[in-house]
Structure formats: C-alpha cells, structure tokens
C-alpha cells in the first residue's frame, strides 16, 4: 500500500511538472490554442460552405457535425499522442533526461504520470475549442448518444497511449531525429484514419491499412454515436476493437520501451545530446 501511494505520488510529479511548464510557456499555449480554434473553425466552415460551393442541396448540419467530430476527435487524439510520445523528447530538450531516469521509479509510473497529464490536457484543450466553435454554429445534437461517445473516446485513448509509448521510443533511440519521426507516424495516422472523410473514398490499397489504425474506429464510433445516435450496444464492435488494440498496444509499448531503455543504457544514448 505504501509502495502504491509512493508510486502515485511519483506519477503526480509528472502531472504537476507538466502543468507548471504549461503555465510558464503560456504564450505558446495561447498561440497553440488560437491556431487550433482557427483550424477547427476553418474545417467546420468547409461543411457550412459545401452547399454554396457545389450548388447541390445537402444536409449542411450533418456535414458540419461530420467535420467537427473529425477535427475535435483528431485534435484530442493527437494531443494525447504528442504528449505521450514526446516524454523523452521534452526531457532531452531540457537536459533533464538523466535525472528522471536515475530516479527510483518504475517506467510504468513515469508513463502513468505523463498519460494522466495528456488526458486532462487533451480534454481541456478540446473542450475549449468545442466551446468556441459552438458559438459560431447551431449544433444540432438531438438524439446523440453522449455516453457511448465518451466510452469510445476513453477506449480510443488507451490505444493512442499505447501507440504514443511505442513512438516515444524513437527519440530514445535516435536522439537527433527521433522527435521528427514521431510526427511522421502522426501524419500517417491522419491520412489513413478518415479524419475528414470516410475511408471508403481512399484508394483500395489504403483501405486495409486504414483498418489497422485505432483512430479509424474512434472516428467511426464517435460519428455513429453523435450523428446517428447509435446505441451503446451498436457501438460494441468499435468498442471491442479499440479495447483489443489498447490491451495489446499498452503492454507492448511498455515492453518495447523497456528494451529500448536497455539499449540506450548500453550505447550511451541517455545523455542529453545522445
């Protein structure tokens, strides 16, 4: 019990530290938030303008919601992915990596702390964007299954945390280019997961790959719950796939990270400059 309390206290150290960093880098946080709001609004306005652009009668409210769900869900998932995958890159940047790795904590404790922060930060950030976008559009969400959408988002978070942990290995192994590599993974997830379009419009060879991305199931599940009002039972397929991906990705991510840490300690890549 004492050990558990100690580990939770150590996990909280990462949450507190990261919120302190957010506070100190407030200028960048404002810029990032403004950019994210502008981005979400721009994409949602595409939905509002589709009828004017095509000259065809469409269900504009559905189109707006379709794009809005895409932009918000992707924003949330990419914030979670970024924060988890950059746990090494941040420490390298600040030069604190050796001190964190010297501390008597398990890597799971380290990951739990970083993950908790990323979930809270991601939800706050996405909530703020939603609040602003709601001021611009009459969002008609009558009949939406909010409970089901929360379940989808939570189970999707698990798999994205797992993917983030796997991606965080890259800055550990490749001190100079690892952080850039994680952005390549993120870009591929964006392209393949049907964030702003159904994956059925992708070329045939891309569609099976899209089915490997957990984001595909999060987006399909969220749209089904919010736009079509699908019941939680109907979301079972998506939920099941996301839970399976999460249950596999999380321990796999930790195991891969453990091996990468050993490799880094053998080759001296834990140093600030690698």
């Amino acid at each position, binding site marked *: 019990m004492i050990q558990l309390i100690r580990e939770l206290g150590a996990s909280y150290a990462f949450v507190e530290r990261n919120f302190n960093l957010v506070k100190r880098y407030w200028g960048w946080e404002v810029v990032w938030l403004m950019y994210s709001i502008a981005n979400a609004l721009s994409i949602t306005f595409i939905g509002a303008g589709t009828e004017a652009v095509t000259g065809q009668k469409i269900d504009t409210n559905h189109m707006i919601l379709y794009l809005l769900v895409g932009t918000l869900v992707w924003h949330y998932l990419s914030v979670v992915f970024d924060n988890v995958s950059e746990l090494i890159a941040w420490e390298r940047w600040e030069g*604190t990596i050796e001190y*964190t790795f010297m501390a008597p904590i398990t890597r799971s404790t380290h990951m739990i702390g970083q993950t908790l922060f990323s979930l809270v930060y991601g939800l706050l950030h996405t909530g703020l964007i939603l609040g602003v976008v709601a001021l611009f559009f009459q969002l008609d969400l009558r009949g939406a299954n909010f409970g089901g959408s929360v379940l989808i988002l939570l189970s999707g978070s698990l798999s994205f945390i797992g993917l983030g942990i796997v991606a965080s290995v890259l800055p550990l192994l490749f001190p100079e280019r690892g952080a850039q590599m994680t952005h390549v993974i993120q870009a591929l997830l964006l392209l393949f997961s049907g964030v702003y379009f159904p994956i059925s419009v992708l070329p045939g060879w891309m569609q099976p790959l899209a089915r490997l991305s957990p984001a595909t199931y999060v987006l399909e599940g969220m749209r089904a719950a919010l736009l079509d009002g699908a019941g939680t039972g109907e979301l079972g397929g998506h939920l099941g796939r996301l839970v399976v991906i999460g249950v596999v990705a999380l321990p796999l991510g930790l195991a891969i990270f453990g091996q990468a840490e050993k490799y880094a300690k053998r080759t001296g890549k834990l140093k600030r400059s690698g």
Partner: protein
Amino acid sequence: MYAVENDIALNVAGVTKKFVKSEGFPWPWKRRRNGDQNGRQNGNGRRTVVAVDGVEFQVHRGEVFGILGPNGSGKSTLVRCLSTLLLPDEGSIAVFGHDVLQEEMVVKRLINRVSVDASFFKKLTPMENLLYGARLYGLGAREAKRRALEILERLGLEREPIFQPMEEMSRGMQQKVAIARAFLTQPIVLLLDEPTTGLDPRSKREVQAFVEELRDTHDATILLTTHDMQEADALCDRIAILDDGKIVALDTPAGLKSLVPSINGHEPTLEDVFMELTGKQLVKDEDEKSE
C-alpha cells in the same frame, strides 16, 4: 530502508565501458581515419572507443573519494555507470553490497548525482524543480519544501530567486540548486561529477565548503570527479588518477605526492604527480569543454 551495514560504500570491480562511434556510411571514395589514440577502426565505418578500461577501486563509508583526470579520461562515463545510466560491458559495481544491475531500484534510492551541467527545467523555479525531483523520490510536498528551503539557504541562496525561473539565475546559483536537488533526497552516496567546473571563484568556494560540511557532519560517502587538483587535494581522503580510462595511481593526496621527488625543495603538487605518471598536463585549457 535497505541494508547499508557494509563498510564498503562503493565496490567497482574491473569495469570496462566501450562505445561504438559511427563515422557515417563507409563510401569507398571517402578516406577513412585510422582510429585515434584510443579508437579502433573496425572496417565498417565504425570505431570502438574504450572510455573506461578495467577500472577497479573501493570507497569506504564516509570517505570522500576523488577521481582526478583530464577531460575525456572517462570520469563522467564511470559516474554514469555508477548511477545506473550506463550498463558496463564488463565488471561489476555494487553500492553498499547492492549490484547496480541486479538491484537497480535499491541502488537508485541510495545514490544521487550532481553533474557538470545543472540540468533543470529552466522555465520552472528552483522550488518547482526541487519539488518535482523530491516527489520522484517519494517525498511529500510539505517536507520537500521545508528541506529545500533549508538547504538552499545554507548554500547561500536568497529567498527571492528560489521562486523565480531558473533561466534568470547565474550558472553558480544553478549549480547550488543542483546540489540541493541531490542532497534533498538524503543519499548515502553522493556522486559529484565536476560540480565546480565553470563556476566563478566565489561560487566554487561555496560549493567546496558545502562538500566539506557534508564530509564533516553527515554520514555521506562522496565520490568527486574533478580536474581541479587543488580541489581534489583539499577535499578528498583518497584520489584515483584516471587517464585514458585506466587508473594509473590511487592513494591519499600525500601518498600520491610522495611518488614524485620534490623540486628545488618545493613539495610536488598533484599536477606534478599527474604529469609524472601520464606524461600529460592535467588541464590544458580551463575553458575546455567538459567530456
């Protein structure tokens, strides 16, 4: 608490650490270097550098043990091996009988380290940085704050900068916070890796005074690496001289000096000892970048 009855605080037995340095892809039209003084070209664009070579010593409980050597001699690599950040290729290291590889978590609780770079989150205040470090070692916020203030004030830091971002502090002040961070967790073995390198004389003296105080008043074993021979002479009970990853001599400061005959009636310095044993100067350039 873990067993620390052992009188041997550190047991370093035959530790060797090599690094493979990549020289880029071995295009046939590129002329390859033939390895440098301690590097070995292995024909595939990589060379092996032996950073620590069969190092062996013991440090007794309560002792201040110095490792004296020039930049690139393997001091920091050895300290990284001791602090569980590097896995030795050969040999073993035990802290109060606990093997650094087999009982990593136990060893981590017994040690802490101050490195030549005061590595902190520069936007955070000293107190925020110390609180973060303390939580990782299982300390509560209230206790950590109390102890941090006590240590920082003892190190001569005024109260105001303790609550301002570290980027506004001088290098000397940052290094004092680094010492506070290490001492906050009450380690039984303190690894000080060139803690005074690059500090102004006053800050250097203050840090040295704190080490003296630790030596005299606390049950701490200190391993100090330095290329400042006066510092080593003044602070250390015993000193190992490290050159190209190997220990070339190990004795008390007086014992080391006795290895060299006096010149014109003057007692030899550790610099003289180092030159006599290695044929090199200890410090070529004060501003030389640390390894």
